[in-house]
């Protein structure tokens, strides 16, 4: 051992009678025991060196997952596009896979319709809730209301779908005429409710991050809380709020069960929210559960649709990250 001197030291000092040495009083030396143990196990050394590689391997699995998603979607999509032309897919306006018509526009319009309705519901409510929580509510109120709002985000989507179909849809049917049982409106509203906590929570975080001094400055000049919220806090937190909304849009686009259950399965080129429609996600469910044989055109089409969906949400996520990164530099 290169510098294991402790025991020798003890002995030497004891011999010299320099001190009443606490270390030398005992029958053994801890350092000696450590030395012995070290000699016994070199396995520990290999373990120590191997661990980072094991952890790296695990970390790489998340990368492989992304590659796997891209590979899967691309592989089946490419096969699909060798049977159906890219132009027909993206420019065609009829989606009827069982009669070999693969124009994806109705699904995209269905998805956009649902997303638009959802944002119309979630943006005002989520934003109002976040302003209330960050600017008006007392600490105690906030501590109660925030977790309750977040319950909304934890409810399984199948439950929302059930509620949209069995409660919201009949309710709206009694208000509007010509309302189909499966319709875009009820599904869209419920998707909107589902993403409220996302907007409320993230926007509230962004607003809370606005320095107190800014608020106090304005309040000190005699501004009301409302004016402070509108003229000081909102502009300062704007990019954080936008980022949260973009993220919520991404979530709405990818939402599957609510639209599968409540919006219907009718690919429809319509912006009439009373109609039954079909979204990208709902078709994937339909395509995967129907009698579709492996590598048939319908089977392959769910990947082409999935790829389209993936690109949409990926762009939204990147946009959201970009916006919130810029926002971090603000203060």
């Amino acid at each position, binding site marked *: *051992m*290169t510098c294991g001197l402790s025991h020798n030291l003890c002995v030497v000092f004891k011999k010299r009678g320099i001190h009443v040495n606490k270390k030398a009083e005992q029958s053994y030396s801890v350092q000696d025991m*450590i030395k012995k143990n070290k000699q016994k196990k070199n396995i520990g050394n290999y373990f120590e060196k191997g661990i980072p590689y094991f952890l790296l391997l695990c970390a790489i699995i998340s990368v492989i997952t992304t590659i796997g998603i891209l590979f899967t979607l691309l592989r089946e999509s490419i096969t699909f596009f060798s049977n159906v032309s890219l132009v027909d897919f993206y420019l065609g306006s009829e989606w009827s896979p069982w009669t070999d018509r693969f124009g994806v526009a109705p699904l995209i319009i269905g998805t956009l319709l649902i997303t638009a309705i959802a944002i119309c519901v979630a943006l005002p409510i989520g934003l109002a809730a976040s302003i209330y929580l960050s600017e008006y509510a007392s600490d105690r109120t906030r501590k109660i209301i925030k977790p309750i709002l977040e319950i909304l985000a934890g409810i399984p989507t199948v439950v929302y779908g059930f509620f949209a179909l069995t409660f919201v849809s009949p309710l709206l049917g009694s208000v509007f005429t010509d309302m189909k049982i499966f319709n875009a409106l009820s599904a869209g509203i419920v998707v909107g409710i589902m993403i409220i906590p996302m907007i409320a929570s993230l926007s509230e975080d962004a607003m809370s991050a606005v320095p107190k001094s800014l608020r106090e400055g304005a309040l000190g000049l005699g501004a009301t809380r409302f004016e402070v919220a509108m003229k000081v806090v909102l502009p300062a937190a704007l990019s954080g709020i936008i980022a949260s909304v973009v993220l919520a849009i991404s979530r709405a686009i990818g939402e599957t069960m609510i639209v599968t259950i409540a919006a219907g399965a009718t690919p429809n080129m319509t912006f009439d929210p009373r109609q039954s429609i079909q979204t990208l996600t709902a078709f994937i469910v339909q395509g995967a559960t129907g009698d579709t044989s492996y590598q048939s055109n319908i089977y392959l089409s769910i990947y082409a649709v999935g790829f389209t969906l993936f690109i949409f949400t990926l762009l939204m996520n990147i946009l959201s990250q970009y916006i919130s990164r810029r926002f971090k530099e603000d203060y």
Partner: protein
Amino acid sequence: MTTNTLSKHVFSIEDFNLWYGNDQAIHQINMEIPRNEITAVIGPSGCGKSTLLKTLNRMIETIPSVHTSGSIKYNNQEIFAKKQLVEELRTHVGMVFQKPNPFPKSIYENVAYGPKIHGIKKKKVLDEIVEKSLRGAAIWDEVKDRLNQNAYGLSGGQQQRICIARCLAIEPDVILMDEPTSALDPISTLKIEELIKELKNDYTIVIVTHNMQQAARISDKTAFMLNGELVEFSDTDQLFSNPKDKRTEDYITGRFG
């Protein structure tokens, strides 16, 4: 390799330089730290005294951008030598930190931590080590009835003595102390100082402090550092009563820092 003759100096530092990235924090230091004495390192904050201390057990290497030149020998062995395992060096050169940092475990587990990681498992041996270390840190009587309680329940001064006991448990040669009382109240500080003086009988102690009175009270030798340089290093009495360097004099008379 037990043929080493005991050198008078535990550490011999020669032409030592250290950089954080491109910033040089320590310039060309030469000093020898004597065995079984208390060596204090003083200086204004940012003078490199903590950096120097943390270099002695190579803790400084946890900062990735650090690089060094020159030599530091521990018992005539180069501490930066390739064959020198840092873990082994650190079992000989223990450290007590600025802020009491006990683990969120019981008092017993805190003190037994060192022996355990080095493979000592026998309960009886551990019990003995724990008691001896706690006695060594002068806290046995205060905690002997609650060894299984979380160390976080203790006062700051007690926590720091637990940390010293934890350090003693592996019987190091040298104990490095990085401003060990700066986070403590005056009474706890006094207790720790008394403990340090007692520990001197069995250990070599290097203590960094920005409290000059503390250095004067407890140390045998004192080093004064400024801007990464070692300005003066001599017997404590001499350094404080008769400093050779003008800068030392300015500092100890309170003209700066």
